[in-house]
């Protein structure tokens, strides 16, 4: 019988230090077994438990897109004991990945609509996955205008900065990169994400908004989206909570009756309105 707690063994193929504070690293993982890779069918918005033998597991959103075959990408902030241990790993080391877990962004439902993507800090990971997926030639024409607003503290804190620069140049996605305060190294937008979003004023007609970021950004983004005319059904958020099993059993990540790990992490604002704010 399939053991849902058993991680697939993977090799760390590449490690990239993403940010100037060196607290965020991206790990490109390659499956040791082809069969495992084939079994790992994921959709943008899902996450996986990264498993480090001797340290434990951490739930991390999948930053790569299923359109990028051959590897998985995870960007991890150094916070606790497992993420610290992960930051100390080297290319070539063996670890585990368990997943994919959780639901995903409702990519099918979003078809035929404009998509507004709002990201803050390192929460951009699963949104990077989503954008990469949407921009793939096989999918791009299913969606309308793509607006992407992404804010970080300072220029050195952008994740995937090469890709961001590339997206800024494309005309099939409107990219708004912003930093919190003026910085000598920056001649782009300055200001908080909600303000930038308000300025960009994407149309809410036949559109959905995907929002992922720190709680404070989410709090101030919601009124802006409302003002722009987005209904609660069209505002889509991704939650995070402490997790262990990742499969809706161990009982700690629930928000009301919903398990963030299995019923989430993606919820509409309309859904969250009916639930306790235990996240």
């Amino acid at each position, binding site marked *: *019988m*399939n*053991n*849902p*707690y*058993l*991680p697939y*063994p993977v090799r760390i193929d590449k490690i990239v230090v993403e940010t100037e504070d060196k607290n965020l690293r991206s790990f490109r993982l390659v499956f*040791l077994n082809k069969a495992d890779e084939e079994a790992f069918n994921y959709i943008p918005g899902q996450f996986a438990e990264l*498993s*480090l*033998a*001797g*340290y*434990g*597991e*951490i739930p991390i959103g999948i930053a790569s897109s299923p359109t990028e075959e051959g590897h998985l990408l995870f960007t991890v902030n150094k*916070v*606790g004991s497992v*993420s610290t241990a992960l930051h100390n790993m080297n290319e070539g*080391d*063996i*670890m*585990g990945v368990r997943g994919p877990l959780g639901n995903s962004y409702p990519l099918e439902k979003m078809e035929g609509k404009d998509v507004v993507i709002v990201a803050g800090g390192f929460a951009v990971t699963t949104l990077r996955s989503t954008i990469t997926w949407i921009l793939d030639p096989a999918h791009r024409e299913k969606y309308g205008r793509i607006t992407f607003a992404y804010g970080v503290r300072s220029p050195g804190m952008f994740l995937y900065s090469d890709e961001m620069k590339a997206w800024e140049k494309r005309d099939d996605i409107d990219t708004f990169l912003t930093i919190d305060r003026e910085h000598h190294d920056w001649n782009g937008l300055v200001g908080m994400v909600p303000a930038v979003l308000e300025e960009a004023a994407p149309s809410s007609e036949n559109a959905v908004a995907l929002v992922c970021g720190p*709680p404070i950004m989410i709090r101030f983004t919601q009124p802006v989206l409302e003002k722009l005319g987005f209904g609660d059904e069209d505002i889509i958020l991704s939650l*995070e*909570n*402490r997790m*262990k*099993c990742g*499969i*809706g*059993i*161990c*009982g*700690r*990540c*629930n*928000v*009301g*009756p919903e398990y963030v790990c*299995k019923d989430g992490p993606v919820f509409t604002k309309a859904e969250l309105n*009916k*639930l*306790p*704010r*235990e*996240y």
Partner: protein
Amino acid sequence: MAEKILKKSGLDGFLKSLGESYKVFGPMAEGREIKFGPIEGGILLDFQNSRMSPKDFFFPQSERMFEFVTGSSSEEANILKSCLTEPEPRLVYGIRPCDAKAFAVLDKIFTNDQYTDVYWTTKREAVVLVGLGCNSPCPTCFCTSVGCGPFHEEGLDVLVYDLGENLLLKSLTEKGGQILEKAEGLEEADEEALETAAGLKDRAESAITSVVETDKIEEREVMELFEAPHWEMVQERCLNCGVCTFVCPTCHCFDIQDEVAGQVGDRIRNWDTCMSWLFTVHGSGHNPRPDKTSRVRQRFMHKFKYIPMKRDGDIGCVGCGRCIVSCPVNIDVRDVVRDMNL
């Protein structure tokens, strides 16, 4: 379905004969405690509820899930190997109907529409449960209020009625039927025995005088219950010790921990408790359940609202009363549910 009579004096022989195909467990006195252990000496024929629930049969407090070697010495290093073994066939005699019902509740939790917790199911499937109905329920029992009862059959393979001189064995599943069929020295139950059994059941049910209602909990919205004022009263005296969760037959929350000794490591799962601050705290330090109120509320909401919402209306409590008996500050689940149902 078969209904057979076994002389009480023949119980030892009956269990011994089952010992050929199963490892047989039964209730035993261990000091003040009642424990289900391998039958060697005599088992208890009549006993009140055990202080700890027997959930550890399938969900041990600490369980080795995986093992691994650390370092980089071998190809296999840092790759987890499952410690799941083919479980031995076990038969448990004397499980109380509430505890069996709890197993049935947990069956639905450890298996959901996407995943099967193999550590639970493999052990669970290899067990035959021979339950013993409760002729004299405890004053803290309220099983009849939560979809269970002193002779409830859910989760059991065989239910035993203690008729005095004799035991009436009623098979409830195919597994149970086979056991009764194979066993020697059983007689077909006659009309009189069946009537006595029915009488025992009625008497036991009417002896349970604590009644709680849950109909309004079902109707109410999550947020209405969540924001009710009575939680403040409950939390005020709650110690957040979590004894309730440890003795509870349906509490199933767990933690997963890695431990390494030298070059060998294990991934262990341990019972955890929603009463603990650590249970929900994020790596960032943010805690979505930061206070006693939110933690104690979670336990009752989980059992009486969230589980029914997600598991076809089944309440996540079987009314065994263990938490009432063990709570150091006497938080009585019956009172809490009454407040929720107001």
